[in-house]
């Protein structure tokens, strides 16, 4: 497939809070090619969560265009968005968001259930995904029987199991201690070298600096786009034109 995996153009997302209009995204444009590892950085309130929701097809923009893997996302209805999320996006959340009563295996199988795969195939692929993140001995544990790092690995396995185009991680190390966080970052680096496209939303400059590319948001606008180390070092004050 030619062209970038993600192309956003003049993206706006406005909320009405009280009588006032809040411009969470105020004309955001960029493109991300397949195989890239990109960090979205910015302070809280910069609009990066809103951007992640739009790119994750959980939210639709007020105006502007968003193409994901060739699909015009802003034109899709709810069911189509659900299918697109299921096929193209693997979510990794800060708080893991595993289903507490289900085993690691059942959690990882879930996206395949919604894709309509037969049980045997689901089982095989979920087991493979858990092996890929080093959890072959924890498949039948429930989330509360796993450590924080292990839970995030389950979440990553769940994100990968459907073989999506895009891995979308929201502060994936935010709830982990630094050593465990480092493990997870290394896992992302490994996934990157294997060819996965990763979009990582974070407020930590150190994490952004590890990424080959970073995009900085401030007040709903792109204020920096370049190699991770440079954008991270630039800080919020300096505006680097894209």
């Amino acid at each position, binding site marked *: 497939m030619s062209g970038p995996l993600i192309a956003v153009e003049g993206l706006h997302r406005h909320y009405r809070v009280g009588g006032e209009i809040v411009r969470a995204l105020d004309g955001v444009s960029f493109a991300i090619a397949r195989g890239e590892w990109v960090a979205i950085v910015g302070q809280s309130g910069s609009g990066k969560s809103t951007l992640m929701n739009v790119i994750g097809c959980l939210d639709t923009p007020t105006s502007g265009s968003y193409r994901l893997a060739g699909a015009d996302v802003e034109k899709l209805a709810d069911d189509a968005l659900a299918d697109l999320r299921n096929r193209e996006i693997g979510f990794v959340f800060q708080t893991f968001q595993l289903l507490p009563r*289900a085993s690691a295996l059942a959690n990882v199988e879930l996206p395949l259930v919604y894709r309509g795969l037969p049980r045997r195939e689901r089982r095989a692929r979920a087991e493979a995904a858990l092996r890929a993140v080093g959890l072959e001995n924890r498949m039948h544990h429930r989330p509360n029987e796993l450590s924080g790092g292990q839970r995030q690995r389950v979440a990553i396995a769940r994100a990968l199991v459907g073989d999506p185009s895009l891995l979308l991680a929201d502060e994936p190390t935010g709830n982990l201690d630094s050593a465990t966080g480092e493990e997870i970052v290394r896992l992302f680096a490994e996934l990157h070298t294997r060819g996965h496209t990763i979009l990582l939303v974070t407020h930590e400059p150190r994490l952004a600096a590890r990424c080959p590319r970073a995009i900085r948001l401030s007040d709903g606008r792109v204020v920096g786009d370049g190699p991770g180390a440079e954008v991270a070092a630039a800080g919020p004050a300096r505006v680097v034109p894209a």
Partner: protein
Amino acid sequence: MRRGWRALRRGAVRAGAETSEAVRIAVQALAGARLRSFLTTLGIVIGVMTVIAIVAIIQGLNRSFEAQIGNLGAHTLYVSKFKWFNTSDEWWEMRNRRNLGRPELQAVEREAASAVAVAPMAQLRGTIVRADKEAPFILVIGTTARYLDTNGVQIAHGRFLSDVDEGLSRSSIVLGADVTDRLFPGFRPEEIVGRKVTVEERPFTVVGLVARRGRMLGLNMDTNVMVPYSTFLRDLGSKRSITIAVATEPGKLEALEDELVGILRRVRHVPPGKKDDFAVNKQDQMIRMYEQLTGALYGVAIGVGLITLVVGGIGIMNIMLVSVTERTREIGVRRALGARRRTILLQFLVESSVVAALGGAAGTALGLGVAQLVAALTPLAAAVTPSAVGLGLGFSAAVGLIFGSWPAWRAARLDPVEALRYE
């Protein structure tokens, strides 16, 4: 073409997987909150239990009633001064009517073309004595051999009254089963036939024993004795109004009724335009009376059951709303992973139906238990038909669906972004 087929297959697999997933989730969610699930279903359990128990008892009643009603003779009309199931006002009017007697009997015997058997029934309550044994308050019926055909009586031993008994006004008597037990305890049947008893101090000879008939509408049919009609008139009184039992063939009941009304009006000289001064009674009346009674009972049972089911349904709705709120984040996660709105809807609908159906199953089991208990402890019989069980289960699952639909709809309408952020 091939692609379409594949898409269809994938859709079917998806729907199947989602449904089985929904059932699995429902069972997990219920197992995770056992006490709560139990309390939630209690309303349904009680509702279904009530309905099943009452329906079982009514069906038991129906069955024994149907068996008993056969005692009357299915195609027999009973001509009498009194109408069955009358009001007290009517009773006074009927009491003052002219008695029915031989003239009416002979007219019916002679003229009723649709009749296959006609038997008089003169009745009194009397005491029967044998040696030191006494049977008080026994219904003594003066009748003829035709009574066998009109009233469906079966002889266990000996014979029934014959035309010779009637013609010679012999003092023959046929005993009901309870009377036999009372007067001849420990006797073998063949020893009883030929023995003497007294009815109101007049001697009679036992010629036969009636097979046990059981009770009908609380009336013991085995405390009757039968003597020849002519003997009854001679020895036990001729001033009573009699009942004339007239049997016909299947399908001729209405024709017979018309004939009887015509005959009786003429014999009794009822002027045209005046009301009948007699009544033609039939099983139908008893069945209708009975159906009125049990119909009211059915209505009450179903009303009570429905109210309890609605209360139970509200309980289910309440708990499902709580469940949806508690699992808001789970819903957000599922939506993020690709669940459509209707998938979420299905999940919660399945959950509420499973809760309700489990409650229905428990209620059915308890209801059957109660019915068996009632059958064991009281004279009431209980019969459970599969339809009652199906009704109980079906109703409760429907309640789960109906009352679960609003919470499920709310779950499906949740915005995924909001749901994921929910604390």
